[in-house]
């Protein structure tokens, strides 16, 4: 039985509230904001690059730091969205729609203030809600045995492949390729070598840090090197007086903020859906419920609240499936999954049984990170936008050097550096051909867990495949898997039938 949530929160606070953690949160939020404000450099890439740097840290500090980076990067995307019409991250795409027109109308500082305060309050309240949901999630996790964990893994891959990317089949190919890559090292029961191409680096397990860093960070460099500068727009004028005017505006719009936060929380909790989905859903809802919908997209401050309030709430929401089920709610949480494994925390239902304290520390760190974000963003947003005017040809070599040493650091192995670069090329080819990289990452990370659960289930059932259909939860998960796989084709058919019948009646 896991301890009471209140006791866990108090214990987690004891772990979190140290000077060391505050410093790492401050550094994490600032670094995240800085990297998140670089257009094209996503929160996922930022967390992926930071991953090897957390190696010497304890699990708690590492996860606190990465959570702070996640919060910072999520907000950082709003800065160029407001000031130069370019979202720094996918989650800030809807922010551009109203924030940049505000900037063009001379309200850039007010738009910045709105984005800062909406982000902070949305993220803070969402994290608070999730904190009190961890207890029921933990109790639910007790119902999962090896059989359910195996089916859950398959469902997770299917759900993520369907939700992320335009092409389900390509998403599934990527996911199952990830599972196959994870199954390349030795047989877990006999220790016999399977397919390691003679590389000792692949003998025990596929190192996921080089895979994650390669797919996300290195593949991005192939694009970034082609840009002379990230942005050539230097005409930026901001003032603190107007930034606080934006903060005051958000305080007068509590309903809009709570609605945005609620949408972000719900969308973020769905496996595979992320900030990019949430901020458009929230923006659309705000527009349709507004008395003046035509002003949305023309510089309506409520549009900025809708986008920023929701994408920051996704940060907390997306950690629910990640922590409780081992299924990431976004690309960044897929990297957070890797971070959990790197620091000895096994993602999935067992996490809430065995690492409930760490899960509480992560959520609490989001609360603290959001408070720090408020001060950091108010202090530096005005100036941070200069990052986007930095030449790409100075950023690319710096990132290359940091990722090389980062990949090397984990096992002091040059094999890992080569592996990272190989997956950088794989990531580039995948991106050019519309394959989502997140299912591949998920397959590599979850592969050993799924295989272990499969082998133990087969052992218990004397190799009876029907065992995987032998419990209510497993059956529900199988049904959900089938629904996830066929929901898009079925909805396409239904839409086609409705369209054809509508044509008939014209």
């Amino acid at each position: 039985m896991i301890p009471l949530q209140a006791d866990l929160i108090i214990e987690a606070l004891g772990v979190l509230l140290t000077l060391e953690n505050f410093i790492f949160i401050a550094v994490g939020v600032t670094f995240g904001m800085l990297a998140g404000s670089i257009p094209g450099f996503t929160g996922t890439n930022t967390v992926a690059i930071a991953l090897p740097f957390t190696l010497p840290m304890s699990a708690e500090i590492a996860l606190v730091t990465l959570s702070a980076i996640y919060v910072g990067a999520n907000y950082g995307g709003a800065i160029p969205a407001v000031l130069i019409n370019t979202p720094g991250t996918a989650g800030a795409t809807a922010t551009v729609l109203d924030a940049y027109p505000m900037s063009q109308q001379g309200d850039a500082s007010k738009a910045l203030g709105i984005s800062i305060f909406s982000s902070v309050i949305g993220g803070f309240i969402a994290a608070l809600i999730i904190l009190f949901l961890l207890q029921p999630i933990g109790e639910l996790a007790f119902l999962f045995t090896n059989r359910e964990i195996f089916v859950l893994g398959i469902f997770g891959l299917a759900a993520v492949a369907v939700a992320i990317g335009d092409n389900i089949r390509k998403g599934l190919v990527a996911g199952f390729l990830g599972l196959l890559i994870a199954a390349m090292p030795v047989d877990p029961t006999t220790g016999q070598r399977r397919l390691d191409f003679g590389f000792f680096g692949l003998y025990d397990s596929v190192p996921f840090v080089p895979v994650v860093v390669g797919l996300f960070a290195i593949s991005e460099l192939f694009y970034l090197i082609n840009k002379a500068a990230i942005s050539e727009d230097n005409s930026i004028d901001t003032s603190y007086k107007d930034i606080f005017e934006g903060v005051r505006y958000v305080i007068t719009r509590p309903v809009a903020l709570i609605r945005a936060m609620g949408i972000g929380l719900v969308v973020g909790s769905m496996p595979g859906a992320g900030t990019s989905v949430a901020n458009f859903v929230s923006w659309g809802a705000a527009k349709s419920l507004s008395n003046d919908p035509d002003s949305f997209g023309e510089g309506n401050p409520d549009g900025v609240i809708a986008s920023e309030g929701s994408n920051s709430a996704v940060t907390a929401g997306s950690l629910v499936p990640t922590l409780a089920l081992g299924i990431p709610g976004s690309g960044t949480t897929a990297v957070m999954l890797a971070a959990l494994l790197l620091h000895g925390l096994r993602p999935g239902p067992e996490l809430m049984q065995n690492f409930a304290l760490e899960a509480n520390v992560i959520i609490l760190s989001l609360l603290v990170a959001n408070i720090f974000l408020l001060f950091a963003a108010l202090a530096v947003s005005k100036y941070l936008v200069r990052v986007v005017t930095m030449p790409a040809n100075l950023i690319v070599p710096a990132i290359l050097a940091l990722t090389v040493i980062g990949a090397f650091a984990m096992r002091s192995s040059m094999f890992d550096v080569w592996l990272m670069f190989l997956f950088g090329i794989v990531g580039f080819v995948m991106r050019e051909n519309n394959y989502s990289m997140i299912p591949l990452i998920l397959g590599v990370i979850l592969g050993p867990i799924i295989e272990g659960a499969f082998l133990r289930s087969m052992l218990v059932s004397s190799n009876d495949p029907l065992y995987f259909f032998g419990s209510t939860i497993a059956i529900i998960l199988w049904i959900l898997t089938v629904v996830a796989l066929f929901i898009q084709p079925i909805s396409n058919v239904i839409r086609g039938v409705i369209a054809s019948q509508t044509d008939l009646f014209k």
Partner: protein
Amino acid sequence: MTSTEAENEATDRPAHATGTLAVFRLAFPIAGLLLAALYVESTYGRIRLSNLYYPYFVIGVLSLLTLVVLVNEVRALVSHQSELGFKQSARRSIIEWRRSIGFAFVAIAYIWLIEPIGFFIATAIGMVGVMVVGGRRDPLWISIVTGIILVFVYVMFVQIMGLQPPQGPLGI
């Protein structure tokens, strides 16, 4: 839509040759199938079959899905109207992606050099190489950025984390 296609539409330039597109579009699924085939070749008959249920289940699903993707890709390629010959198309792709290709070569050389000449010297050479490929020519900025990163890596990884990156003949 790939960025190459997007560029074609945006600039209204002649469409790539089918062969060039095929090389790029089919590379990933074929690599997946190849990996699956190698896996079977490497394990079948050598490892007890009951231990291979899981990887072969994964391979079965992967092969099926990949074949469906391949069929769709081939159908799209068959209907593709190419306006360039293979060589012209390949040349244009190389020109479009010349910096990315240059970056790849410099990065490979950099990683390859780390063990023989040491991490810090290789990183200095690699960073200068990438900056030159990226179009930067002014020695001042090249030196400043290279210096900052090398100092940061030394402090963070060597001093704080206690990491020992490969050392070359000069001991650095």
